[in-house]
Each structure stands twice: as C-alpha cells, then as structure tokens.
C-alpha cells in the first residue's frame, strides 16, 4: 500500500498543533522554545514530503536553511532566556511582561 501524501501532511499538522498547544499551555520559556522547534520541524516535514513526492530537491534545500535558522534562533533565544533569568530569576513567561505597553 502506497503511503498517500495526505498521511504525511496530517502527521505534520498534528505535530504542528502539538507544538502550538505546548506554546499555549506551558509557562516555562524553555519548553515553549522547544515547542517552537517542534513546529519548525513539522514544517520541515511538509517541505520534505513535497520535495520527495515532486522529485524536486529545492524543498530539502529549504529545510537545510530552516535548520540553520533554527540553530541561530536557538542560540539567540536561549541566550535571551539566560539573560532574562539572570535579571528576573524566572523563566515563567507569564511573569515576564516587559512588552506590556
């Protein structure tokens, strides 16, 4: 039985939604961050699925770039979390509201 492209897409959607749910319900900034990584990966899965099904490598190139960006993002983001933790002694994002008007 051939694996239909829908399966991959639905799997990707499921992972993405898991990531979203995590972002919405977790307080810990690090977990939220990890959820974002999960969402990025779900997007990657979609890209690769299409790349494979269309026989075109450009989707995979994009995944490569996404990985690089994810690495950069993780580096900066975690550095921010460290800096924040030093200041506020917390990584609970509902206690961090310096963006408030």
């Amino acid at each position, binding site marked *: 039985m051939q694996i239909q492209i829908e399966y991959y897409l639905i799997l990707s959607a499921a992972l993405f939604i898991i990531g979203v749910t995590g972002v919405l319900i977790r307080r810990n900034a690090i977990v939220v961050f990890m959820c974002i990584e999960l969402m990025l990966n779900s997007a990657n899965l979609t890209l690769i699925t299409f790349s494979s099904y269309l026989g075109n490598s450009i989707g995979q190139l994009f995944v490569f770039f996404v990985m690089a960006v994810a690495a950069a993002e993780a580096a900066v983001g975690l550095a921010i979390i460290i800096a924040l933790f030093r200041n506020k002694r917390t990584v609970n994002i*509902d206690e961090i509201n310096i963006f408030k008007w």
Partner: protein
Amino acid sequence: MIDLIYLAVFLPLLGFLINGIFGSKIKNVERSKIPFLGEKIIGLIGSGAIGIAFLIVIGAFFETLSLPADQRTNYVNLFTWMKVGALDVSFAYQVDQLSLIMALVVTGVGFIIHVYSIGYMHGDRSFWRFFAYLNLFIFAMMNLILADNFVLMFLGWEGVGLCSYLLIGFWYDKDFEKSTTSAAGLKAFVVNRIGDVGFLLGMFLIYLFFDSLKFSEVFSRAVSFDVPEHIFTLITLFLFIGAIGKSAQIPLYVWLPDAMAGPTPVSALIHAATMVTAGVYMVARTSVLYAMAPTTMMIVAVIGVFTAFFAATIGLVQNDIKKVLAYSTISQLGYMFLAMGAGAFSAGIFHLMTHAFFKALLFLGAGSIIHAMHEQQDIQHYGGLKKYLPITYGTFLVAAMAISGIPPLSGFFSKDEILWFSYTNLGFVFWLIGVLTAMMTAFYMFRLYFLTFDGKPRFDEKQTHPHESPKMMTVPLIVLAVLSAIGGFIGIPEIFSGAHGNAFHSWLSPIFKSANLKLSYFGAHSHFEEYLLMAISVAGALGGILGAAYIYLKRPSIAVNTVEKFKSIYTTLWNKYYVDEVYDATVINPIVNSSRSFLWKLFDNKIIDGLVNGMARSVGDVSALIRKLQTGIVQSYALVMMIGILLAMFWLILSF
C-alpha cells in the same frame, strides 16, 4: 454753474483733506501780529470751502431757474463707480429743483454754522479736527442730496452717519450722562446702521424689480413696469426703515437725544438742520414709489404723527437745554413725515427748510448760552439771561416763535400747511394730534425761553459772569433769525397769495408730479375751513405760550404741584418712557450676554472647538484603549493569533 456742481461736492472734501492732514501743523502757525493765526487759517479753509460751495449752488440755482420748467433736471456725470452686470453706478449728480433746495439749505446753513464754529470752538485742542469733520460731513451730505442713484445716496447716507459718529464723540474723553460721548456716538452709528440695513434691502428689491439703481430709470420704470403693489409696499417700507433710523423716528429715535453729547454747532448742523432730515428728503426723492404704496404712506403718517406727539411729551419735562431741543427736533421730524404720509411732499420739504433755519438758530443760541454759562446746560440754573445776552435773547425769541407757529414767521406757514394737508388727506384725528403737538411745542419752547431768559437768575452771579458771545457767533445768529422770520414767505399758501399760487410748491411740483398723479385725494374743502383750522392752531400755539408764561413766570408753584400730583407720569416722561432701558434689557443685553456666555464660551469654545479637540483627543483615547490589549504576555498574543488563523481558515473552508 450746474456743470460745476461737483465742485460744491468736492471742495468740502478738499477742505477736509487739507485740514485733516495738515491741520495739526497749521494750528501751530504763529505770527505775533495776529493772534491765533493757525486757528484762523483752519477756520478760513473750512468755512471757505463751504462758502464757495454755497455760491456755486446759488449759481446753479439761478441757472436752473432761468431754464424752462420742464428742463430743470440736469445731470453731471463724473466717473463710473461700480459696473457689474446690469448694475451701472456712477459718481453722477442730479441737479433738480429738490436737490437744489436741499443743497442750498445744507451749504447755506452749513456755512453759517461753520462761521459760528470758528468762534465757538476757539481754543479747542482739536480745532482742526473739528473743521475737518464738519467739511467731511458737508461732502457726505452733498453726495446724499445730489446723488443720481441710490448707491451714491447711500454713500452720503453712511458718510453723514460716520461724521455724526465722529462729531458726537468729538470730545472723546468727556463723560456724558451715565457713560461717555463715544458711547453716544457708537449708539448713533449702530442705530443708524439698523436703518441702513433697511435702506440696503430696499435697494436690493428695487434692483431686483427694476434692474437699475438710477433714480431716473427706477422712477420711470416704477410707473411703466407691471409690479404688484405689495412689492412697492415692501420696497418703501424698507426704505422707510432707513429713513426712520436717520431721521430719528419711533422706534429708532433713541440715538438723537444722546447725540447731544457732541459740540453744539454739531447738534445744530447735523442733528437738527441737515442730516436728520435726510430721511425726509429720501422719502420725498422716492415719492413715486411711495405713491404706489398707499399702505406705506399710511404707516409713514402714523409713525410721523405719533413720533411728533410722543417726543413733544418728553420735551415737556426735560431740563437740559439741548435735550429739550433734541426732542423738539424729533417731534418736528415727525411733522415732516406726517406731511410725507399725507402726500404733501412739498409741504414736508418746506417744513424741512424752515425747520433748518429756526432749529439751527435755536441750537446756536443754546450754544451761545452754554458758552456764556461755562458749559452749564441745565435750565434750572439759568434765568434772567436777557440782560446779559441781548442778541442771543432776541434771536432765540424769533426762533421760539417760529417753531411755535406764530404768524407770519416761517414756522407758521410750513407747519400750518402740513396740518391742513393732514386734515384733508388723512383725517381729523391726524390734524388733532398735530395741533395738540403744536400746542405742546409752543409750551415747552417757551418754558425753555422763560426759564432761560426771564425771571431772576438762578445761578451765582458773583461766580458766573455771563457775557455775550463774540461777533463770529452772533452774526450767524442774526442771519438765521432773519431767515427764520421771513423764510416762510416763499411758500405763502394760496388762500393768502391768491393768483400767484404757492411759489415753493410750483417750484417743486415737477418733481412730485408723477407721485401726485398716483395719489388721488378727493373731497372739496372750503376756504372757511382752512381759515378756521389755521385760527385754531394759532390759538393753540398762543395758548401754549401763555400757559408757559403763566406757569413759569407768575406761578412757578403750579409746575411743582403738578409734578407732585402726577409723580408717576412725570418720572415716566423724565426718564423718556424708559425706552433706552427697555432696549437695553430686551435687545442689547440679551444679544451681548448670549453671545458671550452661550455663543462664545459655550458653543464656540466648548461645542465646536470641543468637537474638534475632542476628535483629536478621542483618537488618543482609542489608542490608549487599544494599548491595554498589549498585556506583554506572549501566550495571549499567540492565542489571539490562533483564533485569527482559525477564523481565516474557516473563511477559506467556506469559500471552497
């Protein structure tokens, strides 16, 4: 000389410019030989300009007289003023019988008063300014009189109002009654402006229906065009509002008593002899239109006779010499309007002329008295001035008799003619009120006369030393006295002159011909009736004089007792029926107060500006509200984002 009539208009303007621009410098010209040389030069320029103008008018008069009766209307066109669409208004002068009479009176009396003023204003700080203003006034008045169209007439009309304003407030730092002279001037100007609005609207209506503002065109079209009567009524009513304002009739008369704040020659020239009669002149000028509107004629007559009576009652109790004369002027103007309303246009103009003589004389006499009494104007502090001021006394007596209508002085002829026409053309009631007014006039004039000249002095003779005025002032008095005495003879009624007819009437008759054709008064009246009525009015006048003599010379107690007995009536009259107060309370204060507290402080600042600023503020407020959504909790942003995605996808699904 007719062609030079514009000089009679513009020479006074030249005088105004010279005195106005260089006056303050001329005034300081000094030569040791001639004292007050500067003043003399200024006076010479001022009165000289009017004198020459007078000569030109006389020349034009005789030239016109030499022309056949049907060619006596001439035009002098100077230059175009406004030419837009159908409107073509020029600085053009119409020299005809009516305007010449008026011009003669204005320049003649004006010249006399100018000469008088040289004496009266002697030593005044702003001597030059006074003559400048007077000359400007004559310029404006000449425009009013000689204009061949409504707009130029309006120029004169407003111009004389301006001069009146300036001259009433001439002593701008002097107090007058409860406020200042400048307040009186302002009042005069504003009340006149109310009338002017009527004049303007009348002009607009005329232009709308006759497509022209030139007298000759309008009058010929008024007869030939098919315009409904109510339009004529409207036009003439609007014009009459203008006349009411200028000629101080009810209900716009209130400015004239206050106008006495000005120097006395001004009261004589502007507020007695010339400017205030402009309304009468205007009605006479537009008699064709009035003749088409019988309703208006009736209104004019009613307002005229009512004003005459009303003002006379106030005049009975006033103690300020100029105030008495002011109310008398209002009353006499009422007579003139009565004449106009009765359709006796030339009789009205006749009275205008004689009134100019004797009222100017009365004011100048009053000025001479005030001068002698060191600015004291209250007749209660006069008395026995006969011996101190012989010339003033004599001329004043002539004038008082003339205004009371004692034959054969000028006032008798003119006033009696008006009464006669009001009897024949309007009815008995008008005549009766007229005669009553004449009686009162005689009474208060002689009350004034007796209290001033007869009896014992009621002032401190040791402190006040009344002395006769200089020749510069007494000569004009004498000239005016002669005119007041004999001025009536040019208009002797037919019953006396017989076949010669009334010279004045026949001179003016071409002007009022078309108006008189429209007005048809019927009913024959016998000569006996005329004699009888004349006798009654003369008897009434004599009765008034004798009554005054009895009360104020023999039994002063009667006056006091009457006042005591009718205290409320007296105070009402003394306070001039509280008309000023009523106007203040019902018109002026509400407008000013509501403008201040409602329109400005509330409506403008709070509501309109509040809306503007409120709009600006509400933008800020809404932004502040929206800002509150930024809780800073990233999760809530994410949640909102998800809701957005949900909705967007929902829309996507629906549109599949």
